[in-house]
């Protein structure tokens, strides 16, 4: 099923998105953040917490104090050279109040060590990526749409158990929901956790535990099952690093979500998203963008173009950070008002439009949540419609609708019912995609045309004033955010002329090649 779209408009949209993204990336290249530097420390092999439970990467970066703009790599490497200790040992001694961050002059040995530690860190990520490649090659990929379900018990051991159950029931992708307040933590919690609100924390140990649980089932089922978490909030690059080291397969990793929906400072987010996406690109992790959120605050029939405009911008920023299209899971959502006549047709039009605009991207399609009530029977039937549109328009990753959405976190059986419904609809309706044609110039094509025109209009406006000003105006999600407002600005520093980050040295020259893969 193909729409007859105005090629002039689609080409203009891609061009505008590139023009919007580039200044944002230039800004990121002139700055660093505490989260980016903590990521360097982590990838140098530092892990653990001090006596007060503060993660060692925080301890080390905090010790830099006002010298954040120089980067942590050389001072840390210098301490290793001076003391003959490993980064981990140095971090522990700083935590014990023994080590002090050296002055700004660094020896040739420190430069060499930093470069070598970066190569080693990169190799650990590459190793996990190769592992995944091998497993996918062995077991193959499931047909699309992939069945994506969430687990959210708040206890990682229970999550692991439910993840296994969901995989056995037929899920292709499992997302472990993290605690709702984690976006706002300026550190990554440590260890295996058994509490949280609406989910438990994203920690490296939790990633490892669920990955191991799923790997058991992978072998049992002879089918690769993907694992997802959230690289968003104040610790985007650190969580991306943890995920890369523990072979997560997908990450929620939107360029603007934290700004708009969690009031995180825009400068902080744009720097952090750049480096987090670079890591995801390197790790072969598919990012998921969060455009579904635009529709929870505004009606779908009014806000469709903001979703598509954000898709263009998210894609352009991801490409700039070295993520190839096959790893850019652009998001959108089936947020129809079921009581509004014609809504299913309008949603079909947008789903098809997005599919056609980004043929190389594994689109992530989100289920109805906004118009869902405690009437679980109604939710179940809405979910079936959502599944039908998902398969008929060729969506790639389908976050399954759960009949008890808006009631409680999913029961084991709720997830099973969702998987069964999706399978039934997908298997029976898959041929529809190649069997139907929109009536030329008919309502569906007209609707897609209007959304595309509105999208290009919004992108023109954004390109005219720049991303920071557009966000300040509240053009995305009706939520104005000032460039100097929100949380986390104190963790941003302009890079000094002597700023050094050996990972960026290693990766930045390769980004274009990665993105073209």
């Amino acid at each position, binding site marked *: 099923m193909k729409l007859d779209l105005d090629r002039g408009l689609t080409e203009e949209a891609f061009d505008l998105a590139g023009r919007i993204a580039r200044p944002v990336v230039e800004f990121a290249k002139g700055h660093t953040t505490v989260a980016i530097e903590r990521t360097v420390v982590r990838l140098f092999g530092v892990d653990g917490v001090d006596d007060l439970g503060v993660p060692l990467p925080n301890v080390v970066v905090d010790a830099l104090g006002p010298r954040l703009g120089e980067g942590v790599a050389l001072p840390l490497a210098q301490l290793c050279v001076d003391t003959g200790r490993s980064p981990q040992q140095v971090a522990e001694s700083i935590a014990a109040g023994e080590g002090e961050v050296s002055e700004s002059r660094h020896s040739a040995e420190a430069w060499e060590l930093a470069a070598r530690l970066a190569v080693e860190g990169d190799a650990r990520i590459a190793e996990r990526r190769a592992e995944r490649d091998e497993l996918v090659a062995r077991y193959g990929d499931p047909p699309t749409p992939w069945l994506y379900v969430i687990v*959210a018990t*708040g206890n990682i051991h229970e999550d692991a158990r439910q993840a*296994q*159950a969901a995989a*056995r*029931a037929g899920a292709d992708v499992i997302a472990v929901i993290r*605690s*709702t*307040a984690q*976006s*706002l933590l300026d550190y990554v919690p440590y260890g295996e956790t058994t509490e949280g*609100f*609406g989910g438990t924390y994203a920690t490296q140990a939790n990633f490892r535990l669920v990955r191991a649980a799923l790997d058991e089932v992978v072998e049992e089922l002879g089918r690769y099952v993907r694992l997802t978490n959230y690289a968003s909030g104040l610790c985007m690059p650190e969580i991306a690093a943890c995920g890369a080291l523990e072979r997560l397969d997908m990450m929620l990793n939107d360029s603007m979500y934290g700004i708009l*929906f*969690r*009031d995180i400072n825009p400068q902080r987010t744009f720097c952090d998203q750049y480096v987090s996406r670079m890591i995801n690109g390197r790790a072969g992790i598919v990012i998921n963008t969060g455009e579904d959120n635009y529709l*929870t*605050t*505004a*009606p779908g029939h009014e806000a469709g173009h903001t979703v598509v405009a954000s898709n263009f911008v998210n894609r352009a920023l991801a490409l700039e950070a070295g993520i190839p299209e096959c790893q850019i899971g652009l998001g959108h959502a089936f947020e129809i008002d079921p009581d509004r006549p014609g809504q299913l047709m309008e949603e079909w039009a947008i789903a098809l439009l997005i599919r056609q605009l980004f043929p190389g991207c594994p689109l992530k399609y989100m289920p109805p*949540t*906004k118009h869902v*009530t*405690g009437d679980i029977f109604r939710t179940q039937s809405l979910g079936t419609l959502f599944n039908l549109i998902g398969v008929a328009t060729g969506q790639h990753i389908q976050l399954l609708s759960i009949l008890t959405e*808006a*009631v*409680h*976190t999913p*029961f*084991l*059986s709720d997830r*099973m019912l969702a998987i069964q419904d999706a399978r039934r609809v997908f298997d029976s309706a898959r041929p529809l995609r190649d069997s139907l044609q929109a009536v030329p110039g008919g309502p569906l094509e007209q609707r897609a045309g209007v959304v595309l025109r509105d999208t290009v209009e919004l992108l023109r406006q954004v390109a005219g004033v720049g991303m920071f000003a557009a966000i300040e105006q509240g053009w995305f999600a009706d939520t104005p955010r000032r460039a100097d407002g929100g949380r986390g600005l104190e963790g941003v520093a302009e890079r000094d002329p002597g700023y050094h980050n050996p990972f960026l040295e290693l990766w930045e020259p390769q980004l274009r090649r990665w993105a073209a893969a």
Partner: protein
Amino acid sequence: MTVVVPYGDTAGDAMVQLSFTLPVPPDARAREVGMQFLRNNGFLEPQVVHVAAADRDMTFYVAYAKAPMGVDPEEVTETEVEAPRLTFAEINALIERELGRPLVVLGAAIESDAHTVGIDAIMNMKGFAGDYGLERYPWIDAVNLGAQVPCERLVREAQERRADAILVSQVVTQKQVHARQLTKLVDLLEAEGLRQRYILVAGGPRLSNTFAKELGYDAGFGPGSTPSTVAAWIAQELVKRIRTEG
């Protein structure tokens, strides 16, 4: 006293529909295990109509049975907020006439709750289900503080903005955390001697008016509540208080 029982397809048949999961293997005994479970819980004449594996050692059931007990509606007090329904125009007119100044409503999702869906549905211009949000009322000064607002900040803002009503949304439902957080706000207001100054309203999918009152709120709005129901109740409650205070 008129006791009523569920109506399936015949008056008095007492039929209920159930679904549940038991941690037992979905083997040959599974159906009878489900039936016995229902009998043990007092259900009569259970019929298990669907048995499916939910995992290796988990079985999902759909069942019908007769409920053993009825209910007398007369013995039950209402759980929903009772106030005459008013339209957008009537609410504005009431505030203008009785108060003579805009009614100040402060809204927030508190503490760990990151979900703005509930508070936005009531506060935002667009409203919910075709019913305009409080921000659109010319005689309501609606301030939406958004999500994850600490109780301390909410109380401070209420004082600074001279709020008439505080509207708290709690969507997160895990492990009763919503109740603890709602109680925290009441405790804080009482500790500061401010509790009586505000009309305190809670809303969320797990809330009933009865439950909200038990927690120390003036009213609670459960799932499906529209902005105009909330606005109508707050306006009428405030008018009532002004009149009784003379």
